[in-house]
Each structure stands twice: as structure tokens, then as C-alpha cells.
């Protein structure tokens, strides 16, 4: 067992559970103990399913002992971002507006994890209505804290998911991503996170923020674990209009294939000339390319439109779609929203139809730029963060207008992206990189991510919760 983090990876736990060397009951107890000991500080969960998790663990143990092993997620403790329908429980998206909302069925991803034998540990914090940027205060629940430094932001909006995985409260968590909400907290909390190709994972039962950006995906300690999770989550669902009926490849077997000869395009100008990121970020992201080069990859550099162009498109589309979704509640239940969330959404009321359509047309042009780059390169690498993790208590109403969104380009283009830990700041906070692949080719993205993680060895450092 990986005692430094307090819990094993999914791969290690699954191997031991299958061999009868680790009991799901013991694993769940370990997670519950860690939650009990540390989560009053971290605030990753707002609700912990203590009795339900224990009961599910016993059931899993019984099934496995009787020869009904379902696969690598059987008996694995998982946390759920509080945006997914969960029958029998409230789904709040951390908003007083949703305080009494209870869906009468599970989200598609919840069903898939349940069928795979995963054990739900509880509901994880998010920014109100998943509107990212900085933490929302005066919402239903207080914001999660970063396990690497509790005075710093986790990033969002899958804030509790990033914190819980980093803190070893569960082995994986579900997140959702309309502008970086999986990738930013993954980078800020030093964990791995996958935003798959738009349409790969059903968003049915995910409270929406943006119809044309919303993706659902896993957050884990390693990219190898992300592959196991994605294998269970991916697949067509006719209840999601964005879901695409296409075959799901094997994500796990090719993970250890060599990256020799793969072509890697470094997208450096996003974090060097378009935005003057700190030297530590520049060095860490450049270092990902160097590491892959050392493994035999062919590394070049690509150029696309400046980051501000991508940011502009995202900044027009995202609040417009969010406002359209929440308009009725904003008009009638204004006082029930937290001030940060409602004002961020109100920006959408200021976007005219022509602004929205011009942004969607620019999106078409930008998508073609990435498609062209990926015709030459197997993957693209850029940073997942432009600044260090900001202070938790920064309450600026519109921070996202000042710093360009580094994750949103690949929401615009729909491509799959894996966030990996790329290094550390001098103060010990983690730095994250994005590995972007061709549409539907999450397998190569995960292969590259896994190869980098193994070679770089950055995952051997853990947050100190004591």
C-alpha cells in the first residue's frame, strides 16, 4: 500500500482486491478515517455517505469472495461532484436555488460507476453552479481548500474532486468541465484529470452550465487510473443529445506502449509570449517536452492564434449559455444565488445574439487551427495554468476577465485533454500540463501521459495534511 498518500492508486488497489489481499471494507474504512481526520479542514465533501459506503463495501466484498469480480473498479472508493443526479439524494451544485432538488434517477456516469462496482463515498464540493474562476462564497457550502496549502485555491469548479483525490479521501472522483473545471483543479491540486472528446462520456444527469462545452470525466492520482475510470465511463447514451455513437477503444492495454516516434507539438506561445507565465511554469511545461524527447518522441513547436482569441470566444459563449440555462431563476430567485455566481452569470445577459454567433463562427476557425496541428502531431502539449494557485479568499467578482482561460481552447475545439503533474513551484505547489489529442483518440493522450508520469516521477510527492 502506498502509505505516503494514505491510500493506494486504483491500479494497485484493484490488483490487491482481485487477489484477495485487500478488502474493500478495509479500503473504505481507510478513506473514512482520512475524511474524519482531515476533511473538517479541507472541506472536500459536503456530505459523506458513511453508512452507505460501509454497506456497499461489505456487498462488494461478498460478491468478490463468491467469484463475482466485476473488474478494476469493483470495491474502489469514488467521490461524486455534487452536480450529478443521484437518486435518493439532493443534487445542489452548491446553490441555495437547488437546495431541495432531488432527481428521480441517476446520472449516466453514476449508473456506469455503480454497475462497475465502485463505492460512492459522498458528494463533493463545487463552485456554485460550476461557474469556474475563483471560489464562490456565500453559497450553500464553503469552498474546498487545497491540500497542498489550505490558504490557496483548489481551482474549480470541480474543487472538492481535486482536493479529495489529492488528500487521499477517495481513489477517484467525478468532475465536469465547461471551461477547465476538471483540468484546473487537477493542475492546482496536483492530480490527473481527463476531459474526453465532447460526446464520449454522457452528460445526462449532469447539471448543465454550457450546452456546447459541458463534459464529464474522471480525476485520479495517476493517468493510468484515469484510463481505468474512462473505460467505465465512456460510451453512447441516447439520453444525451451530445453523445456520439462510436466505438470505445481499449484505453488500458496500450498504456505501456512506447512513445518512441510519436510526434509532440509544444504550444509554447500560450504561456510565453501570449501570457507571461512565471519561469517555474515555463520550465515545467517545457520539461514535459524534454522528458518525452528523452523517451524517443519527436518534439516540435506549433503556432496558432494568440490565447486572447481563444479566451474571447470562450468568454462570450460560456456566460451566454449559462445565463440562458439559469435565466428564470436569476429573474425570480436572485437573492438565493451567491453574489459571485449570479454576477458571473449576469454577464451572459449582456451578450447579444450576434456576439454569440460571431463567437461560434470564430470557434469554427480556431477548431480548424488545432485540427491542422493535429494532422501533423499526435499530441499537443501546453500548460494547464498560467499563474500559481491564488489565495483562497480572493473575492474579485470577475477574475476570469483579467487572466486568459488556458483550458477553454479545448472546450472550443472539443478535443480530448489529460492534465498531468508537470513539476512544482519553488514553494512546493504543483504545476499541471495539458496533453491534447485528436478527437476520439484519448488512448494516445493517456499513453503519452502515463509515459511522462512514469519517467518524470513527480507523483512520488504528496501533500502534507498533518
Amino acid at each position, binding site marked *: 500500500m502506498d502509505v505516503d498518500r494514505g491510500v493506494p492508486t486504483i491500479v494497485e488497489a484493484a490488483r490487491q482486491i482481485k487477489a484477495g489481499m485487500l478488502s474493500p471494507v478495509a479500503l473504505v474504512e481507510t478513506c473514512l478515517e482520512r475524511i474524519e481526520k482531515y476533511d473538517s479542514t479541507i472541506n472536500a465533501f459536503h456530505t459523506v455517505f458513511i453508512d452507505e459506503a460501509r454497506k456497499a463495501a461489505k456487498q462488494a466484498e461478498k460478491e468478490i469472495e463468491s467469484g463475482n469480480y466485476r473488474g478494476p473498479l469493483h470495491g474502489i472508493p469514488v467521490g461524486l461532484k455534487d452536480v450529478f443526479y443521484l437518486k435518493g439524494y439532493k443534487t445542489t451544485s452548491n446553490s441555495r436555488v437547488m437546495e431541495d432538488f432531488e432527481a428521480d434517477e441517476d446520472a449516466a456516469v453514476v449508473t456506469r460507476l455503480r454497475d462497475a462496482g465502485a463505492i460512492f463515498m459522498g458528494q463533493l464540493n463545487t463552485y456554485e453552479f460550476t461557474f469556474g474562476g475563483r471560489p464562490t462564497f456565500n453559497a450553500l457550502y464553503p469552498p474546498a481548500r487545497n491540500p497542498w496549502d489550505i490558504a490557496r485555491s483548489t481551482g474549480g469548479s470541480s474543487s472538492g474532486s481535486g482536493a479529495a483525490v489529492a488528500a487521499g479521501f477517495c481513489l477517484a472522483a467525478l468532475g465536469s468541465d465547461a471551461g477547465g473545471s476538471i483540468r484546473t483543479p487537477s493542475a492546482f491540486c496536483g492530480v490527473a484529470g481527463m476531459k474526453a472528446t465532447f460526446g464520449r462520456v454522457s452528460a445526462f444527469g449532469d447539471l448543465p452550465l454550457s450546452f*456546447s462545452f459541458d463534459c464529464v470525466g474522471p480525476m485520479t492520482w495517476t493517468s493510468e487510473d484515469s484510463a481505468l475510470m474512462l473505460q467505465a465511463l465512456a460510451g453512447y447514451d441516447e439520453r444525451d443529445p451530445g453523445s456520439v*455513437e462510436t466505438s470505445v477503444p481499449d484505453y488500458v492495454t496500450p498504456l505501456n506502449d512506447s512513445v518512441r516516434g510519436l510526434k509532440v507539438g509544444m504550444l509554447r506561445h500560450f504561456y510565453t509570449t501570449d501570457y507571461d507565465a512565471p519561469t517555474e511554469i515555463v520550465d515545467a511545461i517545457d520539461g514535459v517536452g524534454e522528458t518525452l524527447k528523452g523517451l524517443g518522441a519527436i518534439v516540435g513547436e506549433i503556432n496558432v492564434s494568440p490565447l*486572447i*482569441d481563444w*479566451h*474571447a*470566444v470562450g*468568454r*462570450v459563449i460560456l456566460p451566454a449559455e449559462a445565463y440562458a440555462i439559469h*435565466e428564470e431563476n*436569476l*429573474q425570480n430567485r*436572485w437573492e438565493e444565488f451567491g*453574489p459571485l455566481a*449570479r*454576477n458571473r452569470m*449576469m*454577464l451572459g*445577459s*449582456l*451578450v*447579444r445574439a450576434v*456576439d454569440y*454567433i*460571431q*463567437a*461560434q*463562427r*470564430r*470557434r*469554427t*476557425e480556431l*477548431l480548424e487551427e488545432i485540427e491542422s496541428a493535429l494532422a501533423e502531431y499526435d499530441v499537443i502539449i501546453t500548460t494547464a495554468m498560467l499563474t500559481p494557485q491564488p489565495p483562497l479568499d480572493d473575492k474579485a*467578482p*470577475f477574475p476570469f*476577465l483579467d487572466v486568459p482561460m488556458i483550458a477553454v481552447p479545448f472546450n*472550443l475545439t472539443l478535443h480530448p485533454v489529460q492534465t498531468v503533474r508537470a513539476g512544482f513551484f519553488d514553494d512546493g505547489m504543483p504545476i499541471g500540463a495539458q496533453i491534447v489529442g485528436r478527437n476520439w483518440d484519448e488512448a494516445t493522450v493517456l499513453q503519452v501521459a502515463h509515459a511522462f508520469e512514469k519517467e518524470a516521477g513527480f507523483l512520488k510527492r504528496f501533500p502534507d495534511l498533518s
Partner: protein
Amino acid sequence: MASDEKPVADDDVMFEGLIRASGVPVSDQEKQDLRKAYSSLMGLAAKTRRPGRSWDVRMLPVYSPKPPKGS
């Protein structure tokens, strides 16, 4: 008689109108914050335009029906 001057979009009028039209009860302080943000937003919206852009550049997402099953 019509003025010879080319009309210029008035952002203040636009902002006031859009906020009022939204029907959302924004406070005075929030309105001040939103007015600043609106300027930034319109600056960004301008960046999504391209002079002489062909009308062949369509918007995403593409609205077309999915192919029939089995095709």
C-alpha cells in the same frame, strides 16, 4: 433631416437596456461592477470578429440530424 454622422454604438445605452431587459433585480453596486465587466466583455467580443470573413465560416455547433441507425 438625417445627420451625416455615422452612428456609433453607445455602450452605456446598450448596457442599461440589456440589464433592464433582463428583468433581473441587480443592485446598484452589482450594476457598477457589471458595467466594468461589460466593457471587457465587449472588447473580447470584438476580437471574435474578422474583417471580410467569408459567410462560408459557419457557427459551431453544427446543426444537422444524425445519420439513421445502421447507415
